[in-house]
């Protein structure tokens, strides 16, 4: 929802970034305020996923210019774990499997690292167990998944649900969903989308990275940005996504070129 005069959560100014010396982000600008849901769409290779990983602090990406201010603070001053503890959450496109580490233990350690950061007491095994069982409902997850190793042997849909479960526990200020819809059948998509919608509040913000307009039928964005060649080319409302679906990305590129020509 767009709320007048709400706080700016994320302000990205002229951001540039490299992977192994190859420039991927080439001057990206974006502002996200509390309560808003943003979607970034774009063709493969446009830099969408790179942007999400740069925000989360992935070590393989080097920021070469520009700035990102998160809640009034330089995001790049923070290590990945500090970003997480202060409310940045990245739902991975390909969640990792961690054999031998139980999902429940992993969730508890993660949850408590944030509690500690906030100066709160860590929850013990029993209290956490109660909490997590209650949150399972957000993504309709079978409790049996808690006792299994993190993501090990999970289907694509189960992994994505597990990401949203983590999000439900960590209650982030800025949730970044990196192609959370890719590879999901319609039932799984509805469950995941429903989970995300339940977690969207006036005091937090959501940034969806997606290749498909379909997701936006279930999580309705306030803003849609089209990204290409490491920049945001154009921004509009949810109707922009429908236009993209109908006319393809080339249309935007042509518009952009035309715009430059004028």
């Amino acid at each position, binding site marked *: 929802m767009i709320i007048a005069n709400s706080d700016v959560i994320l302000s990205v100014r002229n951001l540039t970034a490299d992977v192994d010396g190859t420039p991927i982000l080439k001057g990206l600008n974006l502002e996200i305020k509390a309560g808003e849901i943003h979607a970034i769409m774009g063709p493969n290779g446009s830099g969408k996923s790179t942007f999400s990983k740069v925000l989360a602090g992935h070590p393989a990406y080097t920021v070469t210019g520009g700035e990102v201010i998160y809640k009034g603070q330089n995001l790049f001053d923070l290590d990945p774990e500090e970003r997480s503890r202060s409310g940045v959450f990245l739902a991975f496109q390909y969640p990792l499997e961690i054999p031998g580490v139980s999902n429940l233990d992993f969730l508890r350690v993660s949850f408590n*690292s944030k509690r500690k950061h906030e100066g709160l007491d860590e929850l013990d095994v029993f209290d956490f167990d109660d909490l997590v069982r209650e949150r399972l409902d957000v993504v309709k997850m079978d409790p049996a998944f808690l006792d299994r190793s993190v993501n090990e042997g999970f289907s694509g849909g189960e992994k994505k649900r597990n990401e949203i479960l983590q999000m439900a526990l960590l209650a982030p200020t800025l949730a970044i969903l990196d192609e959370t819809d890719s590879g999901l059948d319609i039932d799984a998509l509805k469950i995941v989308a429903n989970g995300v919608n339940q977690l969207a509040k006036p005091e937090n913000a959501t940034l969806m990275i997606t290749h498909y307009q379909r997701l936006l039928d279930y999580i309705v964005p306030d803003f849609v940005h089209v990204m290409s060649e490491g920049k945001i080319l154009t921004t509009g409302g949810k109707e922009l996504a429908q236009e993209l679906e109908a006319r393809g990305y080339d249309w935007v590129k042509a518009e952009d070129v035309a715009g430059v020509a004028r």
Partner: protein
Amino acid sequence: MTLHVASTDTVEKPMSAADQDRQAYLANLLAQRSSGGPDWLSEVRDRALSIVQERGLPNNRDEDWRFTDLSGLYKTTFAAAAEASLQPQDIESLMLADAPVRLVFVNGFYASALSTVETLPAGLSIQTLVNAAPAARLGQQQGMTEVFTALNTASFEDVAVIQVAKNQVIEAPIHLLFLTTGESPIVTYPRGLVIAEDNSEVTLIEEYAAVGAATYFTNAVTEVWLGQNAQLHHHRIQREAKTAFHIGKTAVSQDRDSRYTLTSLSLGGQMSRHNPLIVPTAEQTNTILNGLTLAVDQQVADTHSDLSFTGPHCTAQQVHKCIVDDRARAVFNGKIFVPKLAQQTNASQLSRNLLLSAKARVDTKPQLEIIADDVKCAHGATVSQLDDEEVFYLQSRGLDRDSACDLLVEGFAAEIIEQLPIAEQRQTLLDAVLSQIR
């Protein structure tokens, strides 16, 4: 110097100084050996003694010891262990409340004051004196001609004989604890014999540790006989002092339909070697081998497993994991032999290795010899460092880098440690692993 040997057939290869040193070393060990026991045992011991003398001690020119250097062992002069007494409080941290039957051996001698065998469940019998051991079984298992095994047979003092009668299920794990204590370098020869009669089931925790010992040498042998349809859950925990040398044999035969599970942990010792040797002697057996080796500092930890099928329709799964840090070295050689007779064998072997430092080293060698033509056998080996993507995933969930690495190592180790039957011990061992790699 080049030595020309002319056409004389009788010329013997001259002994090198190192060979002579090893022979003298062996002579010293043998001079101190125990020779107690009844007549039948004297025969067994004499046979073992002649094997030892004939073969001599190996060095890294022997294929089986190519990666593991024994020269450190040969540089230390060990005296025969004397009987030593420990107090119950000395072993308090090793006691397991959930394993009420406990047999403790100190320096190879049975310690009745530390053991609890007064009330045994029905169907379980325990002997500790060599005179009472069943003659037909002791020293009769496969692999008894290997030199360190024969050295044990020629030299051991007391023996843990654990026998489960036909059709009996022993619920609580049996704890077999072999301890070493003493100031000067000593050699001990722990010896175990497990007999699970037809249709019986039992769980054994066989543990090696030290109580305030200096440099010492444990040369251990456990023989296991599984009757038809018998089941043994065998947990072998080697947590010797970092100063120790440990060479151990686990020799198992499996009769028809029997199930054998071995969880083997190698954590201690400056040099350690474990040789599980499993021979299913009939059809439809199941064998599960889980191993975890931790090697840090300058430790060398070696596992040479050998599983040789002799009949059809048998299954086996083996997973061996090594965590190697600092300048340590781990060795895994996993032999699986599937002869023509062993049709319909379904076996898999996986060697997974985690190297935590640039100087850490692992030598892993799956060795599958398959003659039968209708079998399913798979093997694989991985050697890796901690995965940066996994570390980042955990960091993105609020864990700092060190905690993330700890959790990943814990997960790697836990897959094996979780097989142990007692929760309290699982936690102790997991903590012990983590404390070593921090």
